[in-house]
């Protein structure tokens, strides 16, 4: 009957709407992300220099990539940087969020203070950090003036330690945002459960460890993806703070890729490094995402 088919159509439409809503995002992603990745993979086998060109050279670009001492150094630096950065940011972010969630009167003031570093373009903030960390003019110098003459802090000038100064500046920049993510998560937790647990005599420590933090699991996933992505893409930070130096000691894959693709006119090598990077990220992310997104049965 007519009425029934109309109803049927309506339900069928309702069923299709979610997919239609999602469709543009998926289409755009397939073309502008995965299409471009394929294009880059193709470029990595070509003799592209200043602009893409299409003469195939086989594995030559990869062969050259692994001859370059800066590349292995960049990968090594990324491992150190990413691990420290992700862990420290998460710990500080979660701690601040929990503390800020204790009915702090000044929350409205403190939140923007923690967040503001993200607002500043690092092109300039990098200069401020560079000065602070410079033993000749920054913290060390100031403390010497105040009488603490044995204080020594010159990491930024030392090849083996300069990467840690990049970690400090990076943590400064984004830990406030991680705090906001966790805070949003905390604010989404049902207080009734907490009250019930408190009645049962659970200590604060146990309350957080057993009940609250496990509920923040999705927030951890967000934080991890955001931080990992920022670690992989850290570019401004290094350029402004150390310029990759001393020497090439703080070169990261992002600075390496950019410099080979655009400054050194070796787009083929740049593309090869991008492919290796993406494969490395996939090797780490795919198992993690799989475990995280697996249907809880």
């Amino acid at each position: 009957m007519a009425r029934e088919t109309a109803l049927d159509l309506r339900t069928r439409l309702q069923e299709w709407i979610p997919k239609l809503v999602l469709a543009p995002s998926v289409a755009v992603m397939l073309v502008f992300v995965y299409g471009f990745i394929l294009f880059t993979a193709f470029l990595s086998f070509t003799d592209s220099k200043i602009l893409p060109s299409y003469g195939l050279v086989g594995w030559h670009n990869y062969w050259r990539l692994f001859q370059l001492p800066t590349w292995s150094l960049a990968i090594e630096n990324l491992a150190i940087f990413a691990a420290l950065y992700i862990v420290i940011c998460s710990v500080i972010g979660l701690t601040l969020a929990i503390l800020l969630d204790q009915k702090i009167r000044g929350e409205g003031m403190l939140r923007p203070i923690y967040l503001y570093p993200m607002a500043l373009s690092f092109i300039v903030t990098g200069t401020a950090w560079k000065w602070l960390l410079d033993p000749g003019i920054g913290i060390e110098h100031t403390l010497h003036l105040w009488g603490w003459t044995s204080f020594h802090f010159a990491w930024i000038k030392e090849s083996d330690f300069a990467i840690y100064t990049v970690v400090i500046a990076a943590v400064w920049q984004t830990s406030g945002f991680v705090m906001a993510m966790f805070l949003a998560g905390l604010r989404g937790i049902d207080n009734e459960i907490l009250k019930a647990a408190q009645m049962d005599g659970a200590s604060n420590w146990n309350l957080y460890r057993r009940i609250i933090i496990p509920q923040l699991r999705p927030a951890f996933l967000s934080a991890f993806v955001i931080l990992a992505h920022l670690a992989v893409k850290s570019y401004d930070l290094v350029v402004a703070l150390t310029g990759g130096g001393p020497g090439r000691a703080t070169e990261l894959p992002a600075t390496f890729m950019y410099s080979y693709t655009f400054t050194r006119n070796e787009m083929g090598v740049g593309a090869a490094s991008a492919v290796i990077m993406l494969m490395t990220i996939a090797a780490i992310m795919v198992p993690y995402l799989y475990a995280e997104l697996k249907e809880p049965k």
Partner: protein
Amino acid sequence: MRGYLGKTLTIAAMLAMSAGIARADGSVEVLHWWTSGGEAAALNVLKQDLQKEGIGWKDMPVAGGGGEQAMTVLRARVTAGDPPTAVQMLGYDIQDWAKQGVLANLDDIAAKDGWDKVVPAALQKFSKYDGHWIAVPVDVHSTNWVWANKKLLDSLGIAQPKTWDDFVAALQKVKDAGKIPLAMGGQPWQEATMFDGVVLSVGGPDFYKKAFIDLDPAALGGPQMVEAFKRMDQLKGFVDPNFSGRDWNLATAMVIKGDAAFQMMGDWAKGEFLRANMKPGVDFMCFRTPGTDGDVTFNSDQFVMFKVGKDQQAAQNAMAEAVMSPSFQSSFNVVKGSVPARTDVPDTAFDDCGKMAMAQLKQANDKGTLLGSMAHGHANPAAVKNAIYDVVTANFNGDYDAERAAKELVKAVALAQ
């Protein structure tokens, strides 16, 4: 998908598109990275010159990393089929872009105005591709300079060093007096700028040419190159411990304040001295890196002209002519600290350092010792230049000793070619 298009097809499509995009009549769009006070003001003179002829100026400034950012933007613009009219560019980049077949041909005005006679041959190597004019040079900077605080030197009884040994002795004397002998910024390009002068001082123009321009492995890894790296090690002994990462102008400020005695830097450093109200010859000294008198390692900013629609060609040609006019060349370079890119411009408006530089440029041009600067992309293409940077900075930061550095240099250059 783009990947399946042939190169010619792509370029043809780009050109078709660039012709199709409507622009206001008689205007030029200029992509450049001269954004700091003096430079930008100097360029404004060109804008006004063109306005007098009724030609509009669309400004497209993108600063950063000595033009690196602007070159990235240029790639996007050309790929999108919308290249600017003129683009500031350095050295081998010009030739690389010319190979893509996207540049205009300026032969007619070049012939009319006789550029072949007035532009130094070493510059023409970059302004021309395949025998055709594609770019107009704006200035000539040179890199083998030493800047010194005269009062400090006088107080220590140091005269202008003539030879390398003199120079080292002078540096030692400053060190003994408890001052910083050499003000230095530890960034790869600054170290490489110093290296330009050092290599030239070790082996002279012939060796420089063999090593950096011909990229002869025997020269790159030979005993003279080892000696050059040894001299870099020597210089390293005269910088303060906090040199790494320092901006070049903060290093210049150390000389201005009298904390440091010397700085080895290109002639843009002069602007800092002048701005601090110091007079050449009285408060500060400028001289060529000891052992390189009569030779000049240069870099030259040029405006490269891209292929544009027919309706824009008149404006483009007018801009090229305006850039090459002696009056603009003089007024621009007085401000910029560099020297004009044509040899027939009177030196009356220039200060003593500028006059000296102009005379030396002419002399070097006649002798054939006007050499492209490796550090600034005028001796070899970007890939090779940066490969050399890698080795120079590794040596200067103590990762390679002189022998190892020379070996690595051969390897790095071979890999980058």
